[in-house]
């Protein structure tokens, strides 16, 4: 049985990276007593797929993970039973079965929505103008690891709300916008912000 779990990652878990999050899921599911399916081979690994790596330091409001269990018929476990096995900072929002053969979760992400809180007062003084200027540009040429690319088309939406910024950035293969890059274009040092990924937007399911 394949289950899709929607969860929030907050608190101290903000500083737990992607690989370590795998381990946290494995242990949480073991504590919950679920019969995790393992890969074959000499070093069996539990079958856990996290939709999209959440960069270290980001909070996640609605993250997604797929897990595989060895049972097929039983109803999915209620979120409460998983919650009681979860460490502080991991909040289980929904648990739902998905078709076994649905495409890998990682390939289904179209975009991600972020909310950036500015921690330093004053950082946002002429922010609205800077946001408008940025959106008015046709292109935003940048470099990432020696490769040049255009950030502008990856910004689907960007809006300023008081001391925070909301944005939706594309997240396809080879074309992922990063909130730090947008902040950099706006002249805001990322360490003066708190970034929360509020939602992952999946591609429409193909029937």
């Amino acid at each position: 049985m394949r289950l899709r779990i929607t969860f929030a990652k907050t608190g101290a878990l903000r500083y737990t990276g992607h690989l370590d999050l795998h381990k946290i899921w494995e242990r949480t599911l073991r504590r919950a007593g679920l019969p995790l399916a393992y890969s074959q081979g000499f070093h069996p690994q539990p079958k856990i797929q996290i939709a999209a790596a959440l960069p270290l330091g980001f909070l996640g409001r609605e993250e997604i993970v797929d897990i595989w269990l060895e049972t097929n018929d039983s109803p999915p476990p209620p979120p409460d039973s998983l919650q009681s096995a979860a460490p502080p900072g991991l909040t289980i929002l929904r648990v739902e079965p998905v078709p076994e053969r649905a495409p890998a979760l990682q390939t289904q992400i179209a975009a991600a929505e972020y909310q950036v809180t500015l921690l330093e007062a004053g950082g946002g003084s002429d922010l609205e103008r800077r946001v408008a200027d940025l959106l008015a540009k046709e292109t935003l040429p940048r470099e990432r690891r020696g490769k040049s690319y255009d950030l502008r088309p990856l910004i689907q939406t960007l809006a300023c709300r008081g001391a925070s910024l909301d944005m939706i950035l594309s997240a396809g293969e080879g074309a992922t916008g990063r909130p730090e890059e947008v902040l950099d274009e706006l002249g805001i040092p990322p360490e003066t912000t708190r970034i929360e990924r509020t939602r992952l937007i999946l591609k429409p399911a193909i029937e």
Partner: protein
Amino acid sequence: MLSPAEIEARLERVLLTVQKPGRYVGGELHSVVKDWESTAVRMVFVFPDIYDIGVSNLGLQILYDRVNARPDALAERAYLPWIDMEERMRANGIPLYSLESKHALADFDLIGFSLPYETLYTNVLNALDLAGLPLRSAERNDSHPLVIAGGHACFNPEPMSAFIDAFVIGEGEEVIHEIMDTVGKFAGRTVSKFTGLQAHMSERANAPTFKRVNALKELAKIPGVYVPRFYDVTYFDDGTIRAVTPNIPEAPQVILKRMVAQLPPPPTRFLVPNIDIVHNRLAIEIMRGCTRGCRFCHAGMITRPVRERSVDEIVAAAEAALQATGIEELALLSLSSSDYTSILDLVTAISEKFAGRHLTVSLPSLRIDTVSLDLMERLKDRRAGGFTLAPEAASERMRRIINKFIPDEQILTTARAIYARGWTTLKLYFMIGHPSETLEDVQAIADLCKRVLAEGRRALGGRAKLHAGVSTFIPKPHTPFQWAAMDTEAQIRLKQDLLKRQLRDRNLKLSWTEPPETLLEAWLSRGDRRLGEVILAAWQNGAKFDAWGDQLRFEAWTSAFAACGLDPAFYTHRPRRPDEIFPWDHIASGVRKKYLLEDYRRSLEGQTRLDCRENCYACGILPTFADERRAHPGPYWKCPEVKSPTKARSGVQ
């Protein structure tokens, strides 16, 4: 001091600029966060190395559980920041803080350092400094927390005696409660049924009745607690000790270690870290103490008597710990697993109970015989593909001297079987520098390694691998070898070079301890009170993380010795008179000094003493702990039964 909220706000600005920020935030499953305001006694445990190493320390896990089980007390944790984080903390005025409530260490009533080994000492000074506390015990006043330390290294507390207010000698499970009771009086907060907690931090400084020195006197009265300021040390002209004398009536002449007659149930609610750490495992102690009597082994001497847990208790604890944590590896710990009486029953029970649950079980410290293979096969511990054995010496003469006598043939037979049953890597541990060792004895290590690898080639061809780990002997306090001089740096290098020359093979990996690491550990292990100034000077010269080979700054130490006018060779390369008073002689492990000396003499004559559970050699443990043995009869202790009527505890030396 900054408030927890201020500390948290500053942390948020720096955490994303350091490596592995998850080290600095706590929030682990099973960490205990109690209400600060309504808890009367507040302590923080500090493991003086980074989180990755400290968080899995079993001793601290045990004590953390025990203090937090008390309704009147809370225990939090702190670890040393790695160099990048230390730099950010100092630059941003962030004091060392606890992971649970983010209180500055200075806000606690008691700071408890864990000192399992000596190369943590400069980190202790660094921790006190990062906490904004005066380093010297004498300079701290009633507004500062009490600072205690415990762990194996504290069996020679003298080198750190200027910085630590009180040392706990021996096992902490019971004495921690007596300490917390005393610290509670020092803290001066009382909880009233009607109005809640009465006094607050600021009042500690004003509490008229129970000042720091009273608290220390009370602590000195607790058996097993050593308060160095209540002892004076005098020296002979040659620098050796003339006498160690208590200077208040409350301080006992000899501080006998604490020993828990009945091992309490093992902890099961292990902290589950949110990041990868060094030992990702549940550790359950199956037995404490060791009856083998290897003459170089500090742990084997100071943890006597042997006490075992029952198979049922261990299996139940493993089950509970697994359910509580979901951790995928279980280590069954002891100094000598093969000596656990029901080892086969235990291994069978564990392997049956946890079959199919994706649990890796490790059983370190196995004897060199084929029974060990059967045990390992039952546990299917082939994850790393390796099998570890510790012959320690390779010539017959040396094996008699160190009292670990395993004939070559037994080692080769075992190695043959290990390779034949499919383990591709065998790891052998040796030690060079044993008393009276010559180059021939070292050559024997090289020869044995070659013969073992040849066995591997016969069974597996080119796939067979051998890893030889060679450490260097240190004449540790409280062991029969405490009278021996250790090798000089030149001697050590000569021996290591021989091995490096001889053991050149694609399938043979040789690793060794660099002489500076060994020498530093030796000085710190054997030091007296005067070494405190050297430790301080070395820390001021930038020494920290000395246990990390790549961080050790040897010149910081050599120049510290020079600045203090002390010769390091005095501590390590000098043979001792039989009647020399050692800096640690007023600390008693329960094994008599006379027994150790006699055993040292036997060693020089090549006489071994086999497992004492077969034949008690009267090491001193039984008369010292006769009451405890009488109260706990039966096979659970491995010393003989005591039938004689109770008499008062006699002198220990």
